């Protein structure tokens, strides 16, 4: 009996010592939000743990809506979103929240058209054609307006089946933001948001749901993240930009879109990247942001967050391309760093 007690006592004491050591060593910083940047954030937290061993970032990818709600209620130390907070939401939060761009992504049009994928690498789309396909006005693949953009391509007499995301998502936001920008009819009839009232089409849950439906349905067209399309080797279309060039979606053409917007970017970074003016810029792109309060009330946490953010927009950017996110251009990084320096740690 006595022996048993000694053993139990010993275990307890060593537990206390061990946990004490860990408590002194690790500062836990909680974040929650968008699912789109989750792979790069995980990579950053993993790499950053090697640089600063005293801090541990914990990120829950619960969706942009959840990220905004949780940072507004101050249940997390930072939030993350793919669509900027509205003025109303910012006001409700009570204290000033900064939007800090982390990386950019692009949304591509993917399609299932056996006849075409054999003959040529990718289809070309003008903005008005994209809008009218998703408005249900262009119903067949051999429509004259699609043919006009694709001379020499033998387009089949097949019904177009539109596929969209059924779940609310930042990907949808970027895509309908683009459609609202280029089409007055879309803007007045449907508008933009993480979920919208789609005029036509089938809904698939997540990038994988849309991909599944597109792969399964001959004659279908849908939209997915560039990274997802590349990883899964899906065919995707070139889109005509403002300058009139057909641009193949890629990390470079996405960064070009960012580049084109830097000069006119508002100081709070709540900007849409769609339809930029650069001649090589891909027009359906978007930013993803980390949300932090300007006034950090917890000194220890605030300092760590500032350090991490500075690292993420500089050294951290080199991990972006591998994970198929477009890194931020240098011109923008300086602006973001200035913003980070405005964070007040008390």
């Amino acid at each position, binding site marked *: 009996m006595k022996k048993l007690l000694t053993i139990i006592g010993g275990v307890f004491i060593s537990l206390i010592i061990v946990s004490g050591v860990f408590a002194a060593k690790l500062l836990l910083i909680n974040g929650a939000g968008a*699912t789109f940047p989750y792979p790069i954030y995980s990579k950053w937290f993993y790499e950053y743990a090697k640089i600063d061993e005293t801090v541990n970032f914990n990120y829950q990818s619960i969706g942009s809506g959840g990220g905004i*709600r949780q940072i507004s209620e101050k249940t997390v130390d930072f939030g993350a979103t793919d669509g900027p907070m509205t003025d109303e939401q910012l006001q409700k939060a009570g204290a000033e929240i900064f939007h800090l761009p982390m990386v950019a992504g692009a949304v591509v049009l993917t399609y299932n058209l056996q006849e075409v994928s054999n003959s040529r690498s990718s289809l070309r789309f003008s903005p008005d054609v994209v809008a009218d396909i998703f408005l249900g006005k262009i119903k067949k693949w051999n429509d004259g307006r699609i043919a006009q953009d694709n001379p020499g391509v033998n387009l089949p007499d097949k019904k177009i089946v539109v596929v969209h995301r*059924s779940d*609310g998502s930042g990907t949808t936001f970027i895509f309908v933001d683009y459609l609202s920008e280029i089409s007055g009819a879309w803007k007045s009839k*449907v508008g933009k948001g*993480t979920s919208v009232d789609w005029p036509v089409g089938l809904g698939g849950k997540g990038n994988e749901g849309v991909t599944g439906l597109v792969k*399964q349905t001959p004659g279908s067209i849908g939209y997915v993240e560039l990274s997802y399309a590349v990883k899964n080797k899906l065919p995707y279309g070139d889109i005509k930009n403002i300058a009139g060039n057909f641009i193949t979606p890629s990390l470079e053409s996405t960064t070009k879109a960012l580049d084109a917007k830097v000069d006119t970017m508002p100081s709070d970074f709540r900007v849409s990247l769609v339809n930029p003016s650069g001649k090589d810029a891909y027009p359906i792109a978007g930013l993803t942001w980390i949300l932090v309060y300007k006034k950090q009330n917890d000194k220890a946490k605030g300092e760590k967050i500032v350090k991490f953010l500075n690292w993420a927009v500089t050294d951290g950017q080199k991990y972006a391309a591998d994970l198929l996110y477009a890194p931020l251009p240098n011109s923008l990084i300086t602006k973001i760093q200035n913003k980070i320096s405005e964070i007040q740690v008390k």
Partner: protein
Amino acid sequence: MKRSKLTDFIFQKVSAVFALSAVAFAILILFIITKEAFPAIKNFGFPFLFNTRWDPVKENFGALTFIWGTIVSSLLALIIAVPISLGTAIYLSELAPSKIRQPLSFLIELLAAIPSVIYGLWGIFVLVPLLRETIQPFFAKYFGFLPFFQGDIYGVGMMAAGIILSIMIIPTIASVSRDIFMAVPHSQREAALALGATRWETIKLAVLKFSKNGVMGAVILGLGRALGETMAVTMLIGNRPEISLSLFAPAATMSSVIANEFTEATSDLYVSTLMEIGLILFGLTLFLNIIARFLVWSTTNKASFGK
């Protein structure tokens, strides 16, 4: 002596706490959902139930398309599942040789243990192409005069959702019905046989008639599962909030819209509206479950009288 009384007392109280905590959870959930749904209830009022629009951008929300999708997909599942389940249950309780009875029951119950996402995947890769290439064109060709089999063929849609749901609820209905048939006293069957009834007449007169209410209960339990099923349905129904008579057309259900849109719902009214949809679904399933319990209870009571 005193000590054993004390332990009895403690045991009784502790188990009472456990029993009540389950009830308390249900009430708490109902309370929280109602509280969260209140802004939407106040904003949209009663017409919410009959509005067919679902526009998150303009915040014009209505539940009718989802109620329709939920009820129709579940009814379709019942139409397919009930005959199959009852046939299975009759075979297992009355006709099957005792050697295969056990393994067969086990296999059917195993169906209930397959996660719904697996059913969804199977649906996407096997059922949907089959429907699109073979089954739906067949229906369109020979039964196309009926409004149920008209319109564009996608594969995904109400029919796919109904079929997958029927497979998911067969084990529930079959195994509960089998238990109910087994509960029919042997004296009933023997009486029928003694009067010169054939096998089928015995089953019809002694077994089925006796367990009518209980089977009703089993069916409603299955319906309860179909109403609440989320993942497989979301993957196969096409997620289009629209009311169409055609079984080829895509639709959406209450549980699928909650699963789809809750995480990215940013405005308070939007979240609250989804909560209200949840409340409607909660009410519907609760109502059906109470009926089911009542029916099952009334049959089992009768059975114990027979003994």
